[in-house]
């Protein structure tokens, strides 16, 4: 337990061995705090993005306002969330809500542009086949927009993984705690193991989630593979 590992960067393995349960808890918290906002954010951004596409006049204001959301400093957003939501200050919901806002900010434009990129003849063919507007959206437009939306999702996902770390400053446990711990113990000289471990795990998590989106997008767009194979 108290076998204090060395302080060189590669001692991250020793540090992990000493704090396995704690670090795995942080990793799990980091994972769901990163993923949940992307899921909710996508569900919120889809109708907004569709509206911005459907009504052309709405596109400039909707896209610029949602884009502006992204300029709010995350720390400020975390700090005001309890006031806005009436949540308790140490509630992880504050982080989820703040990161959802950022995801929406990124995805509204992506959804609108993705729908706009659907070939006009495909839309017209669907209309000619008697599809209602909703049927057409669900079976033609959205599937064809998947590659563009997935690209945006990847950006939002990876951005969230790094943004979550900031929530350590408001007492929400996740991998960011490792940076704070490492910094606190960097008094007599830099103490790398928890910091490097936090970076390694964050990067690995970001890569894993990014790959999952790519795979997921490929699974629901089988025709892309067919056309690529030809």
């Amino acid at each position: 337990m108290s076998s204090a590992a060395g302080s060189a960067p590669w001692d991250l393995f020793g540090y992990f061995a000493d704090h396995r349960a704690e670090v795995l808890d942080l990793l799990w918290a980091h994972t769901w705090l990163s993923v949940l906002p992307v899921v909710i954010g996508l569900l919120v951004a889809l109708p907004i993005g569709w509206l911005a596409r459907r009504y052309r006049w709405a596109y400039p204001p909707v896209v610029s306002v949602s884009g502006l959301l992204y300029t709010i400093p995350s720390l400020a957003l975390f700090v005001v969330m309890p006031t806005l939501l009436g949540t308790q200050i140490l509630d992880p919901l504050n982080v989820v809500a703040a990161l959802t806002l950022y995801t929406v900010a990124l995805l509204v434009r992506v959804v609108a542009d993705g729908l706009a990129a659907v070939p006009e003849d495909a839309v017209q063919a669907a209309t000619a086949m008697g599809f209602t507007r909703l049927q057409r959206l669900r079976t033609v437009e959205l599937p064809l927009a998947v590659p563009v939306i997935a690209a945006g999702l990847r950006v939002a996902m990876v951005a969230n993984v790094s943004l979550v770390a900031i929530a350590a400053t408001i007492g929400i446990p996740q991998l960011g705690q490792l940076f704070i711990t490492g910094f606190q113990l960097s008094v007599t000289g830099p103490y790398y193991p928890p910091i490097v471990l936090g970076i390694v795990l964050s990067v690995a998590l970001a890569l894993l989630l990014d790959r999952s989106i790519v795979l997921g997008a490929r699974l629901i767009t089988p025709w892309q593979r067919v056309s690529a194979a030809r």
Partner: protein
Amino acid sequence: MNRRIATALTGGTALLTALTACGESGSSSAGGGESTPAGGGDTIAAELVLGGPPEFQTRPDGVPGLEEVYGVSFGEFRSLDAGGPLTINALANGQIDAADVFTTDPNIAANDWVVLEDPENLFAAQNVVPLISTEEATDGVGAVLNAVSAELTTEDLISLNEQVIIDRQDPAAVAGQWLAEQGLDATGTQAAGADLTIGSANFPENITLANIYAQALQAQGATVQTQLNIGSREVYMPGLQDGSIDLIPEYTGVLLEYFDEEATAVSSEDVYAALPEALPENLTVLEQSEAEDKDAIVVTRETAEEYGLTSIADLAEQP
């Protein structure tokens, strides 16, 4: 307080590099004291740069108190952190000349630094005390934590900090070892039925103390969750008041000042006696320990010898 939060966050090597880098540009303005915004005339302090947590600049026992009580006004104040890596490193490498550091900091002895005496009691007593939500403060929980407070001494704090900060041992292990040494690790049912979430501030000593409370209560049958390293008082205090956490190790003086800005008590007894009155009804302090971790103005041995400093009052003299 966001700046303190932000500094804590920046963690890691990037920050340490930045720290070294800004030392180069900072030292030029630090030297002559001509960058002084509120110069203190020809005193020793006017030639020196003080570093401390951001709020030290405005709090009653900070920069204003130094001026009022001792007539000491430093050439410059630099916002760093609350006795953390920024402050310690800045003092160690000469980017600041004096620092607001906590008396139980093992770096003081490790660097042979000088703690300036505080004859006028500018800094109030800061005894370690468990701050608990009133509804969780049952007799059983009280008895367990009071037994911990009865054994905890200032020397213990310094030694615990040394193990965690200098030797980088795991705070939970260090806490368990201390409890065993004090014979406080016996299992029992004193706190059976209690169900508490214990929090801690974001510095090592507080984390170790929270671990001590947690393990002592667990040994006596309480169900305990921990949420450690929460942040500064501005973050965890609302958490304590809204019931997110139930118990946290606190320090009497700052606690009193947090709830009563006008407080004037300085001695351990007076500060502790003033607390129940100042605290909101949903918070209770248990018995305080003799262990104390208070603010101090600390200078390097070289600075102390160069100017002949032993007390804060000496800073107001001519160089």
